[in-house]
């Protein structure tokens, strides 16, 4: 167990060192959400009516959550390229804890998410977003975002272990992330959606985390009756716990199998 942590840390450092040699790796958690903030704040926002009337206060939690979900696509691409390049074989021929290869990767992802949150928060403050309830709820919201990012990164790992090419990873990343973050209350209230989509959106884990953040940052939250929207913090915690409980062991199992089969 001690070695599992030590080995995971060594692997995590590898991925963090990558930031120095390819800073573009961070674009998914920095530039992309910043573009979304400006695009929605200044272009679409004028046409979207939200409760309380302050679209930027409504928008920022959505962009925060979306960027956490996007991080799972980059980890998926990383897993695919390690499998293809023989780096995974090298790790597997070492007397190290095998699960550390995956845990280290998701751990590094978490650190990248922290950097992304800082970048987005600064950008949000510039366009007029304000965390209004003080330090503790704000930090709780950031904590929840990181937990969601961590849970989603295990979904990315699991999906990555099935793919052969990084093109496939890009395609699947798009197909996975777009509906997850758009069929939700991320950018618009769900009230105007057709009934089926509204039901999906209200139960989407993304929506639970978004609503939880809206509450914790302070600001108007659309009235809701769906259970995850009434208890968003609890629903977010349950969703994250369920995702990790399902996809962490599945990933480790798949990792062992995917390698043995080649």
């Amino acid at each position, binding site marked *: 167990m001690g070695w599992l942590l030590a080995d995971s840390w060594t692997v995590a450092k590898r991925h963090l060192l990558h930031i120095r040699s390819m800073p573009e790796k961070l674009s998914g958690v920095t530039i992309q959400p910043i573009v979304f903030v400006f695009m929605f704040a200044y272009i679409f926002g004028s046409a979207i009516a939200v409760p309380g009337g302050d679209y930027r206060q409504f928008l920022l939690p959505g962009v925060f959550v979306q960027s956490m979900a996007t991080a799972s696509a980059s980890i998926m691409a990383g897993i695919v390229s390690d499998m293809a390049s023989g780096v995974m074989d090298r790790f597997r021929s070492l*007397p190290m804890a095998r699960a550390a290869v995956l845990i280290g990767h998701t751990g590094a992802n978490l650190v990248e998410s922290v950097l992304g949150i800082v970048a987005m928060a600064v950008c949000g403050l510039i366009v007029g977003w304000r965390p209004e309830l003080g330090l503790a709820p704000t930090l709780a919201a950031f904590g929840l975002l990181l937990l969601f990012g961590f849970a989603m990164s295990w979904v990315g790992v699991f999906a990555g272990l099935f793919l052969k090419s990084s093109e496939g990873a890009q395609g699947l990343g798009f197909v996975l992330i777009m509906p997850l973050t758009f069929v939700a209350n991320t950018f618009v209230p769900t009230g105007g959606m057709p009934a089926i989509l509204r039901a999906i959106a209200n139960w989407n884990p993304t929506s639970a985390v978004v609503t939880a953040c809206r509450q914790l940052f302070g600001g108007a939250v659309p009235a809701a009756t769906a259970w995850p929207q009434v208890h968003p913090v609890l629903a977010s915690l349950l969703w994250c716990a369920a995702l990790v409980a399902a996809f962490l062991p599945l990933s480790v199992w798949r990792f062992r199998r995917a390698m043995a089969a080649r």
Partner: protein
Amino acid sequence: MATAAIRAEGLAKRFGKTRALDGVDLVVEPGTILGLLGPNGAGKTTIVRILTTLLRPDAGTARVDGFDVVRQGHEVRRRIGLAGQQAAVDEYLTGRANLVMMARLYHMPAARARARADALLEQLGLAAAGDRLVRTYSGGMRRRLDLAASLVAAPPIIFLDEPTTGLDPRSRLDLWAMIEGLARAGTTVLLTTQYLDEADRLAGRIAVIDHGRVVASGTPDDLKRSVGGERIDVRAPDTETLPAVRRAVAAALGTEPALDPETGRLTAQVADGVAGLRAVVRELDRAGLAVNDLALRRPTLDEVFLALTEREVAS
């Protein structure tokens, strides 16, 4: 009898309908180099993957340094180094960071890991490039770094899967010298190759693999003897003089040379290469024939292969 460094018995592996290995037996004594020689798809890499615990055999057993590769995988991994076909190093780290990471994953303390990385960079001639990203390295430098990565824990047994495939001649010679140095220092080496000259130069023993089986094994000399000595190649300058050249070679050697219709090259097998070559030169001189090319060479892998597989079919 001392424990063999590597002992495999009856290894078999299928991938779907393909029978990748069909009963492979191997023994490698400590401190020696075994060359696994064979064409693409013969099963060489599958053997390496089983012996390095990356793949489970469907049947058969293998022990590395006395430990079973299936049941005692962790013990095996503590005693081996693997350098694969692709240089499995991280492109976006420096050479030094790659080696430090490996050393840490072998659970060396940080200071020792750094010292080990420095020593290996020095040993493999990468000291000056140690702080550059690997993506800026040449193919030869990558392979050397990959070899360094497999040596981090100074394992008693290393596996090199086609270590020089795709390298330029200079890098190939460098890598050969390093592998020889390892063996001199007592490391057991199992290397796979498609090149007879590589196996010949490095390996004390060679196992020829084809269709998932060991079709021949022995010292390089054993193998060459088994396929009948050396070859003399002669190329006539044009098709008009070809028949005359052919007659001259046949007269000199007392055996009809084979003609490769693609290249116009005549090849004859000789027991004593130097004597045969002199006889051919004399005969060509007497007939007043000029030739474009005249060479004495050892059998190529193709020829070893044809000879060995023909024998298989015959027996």
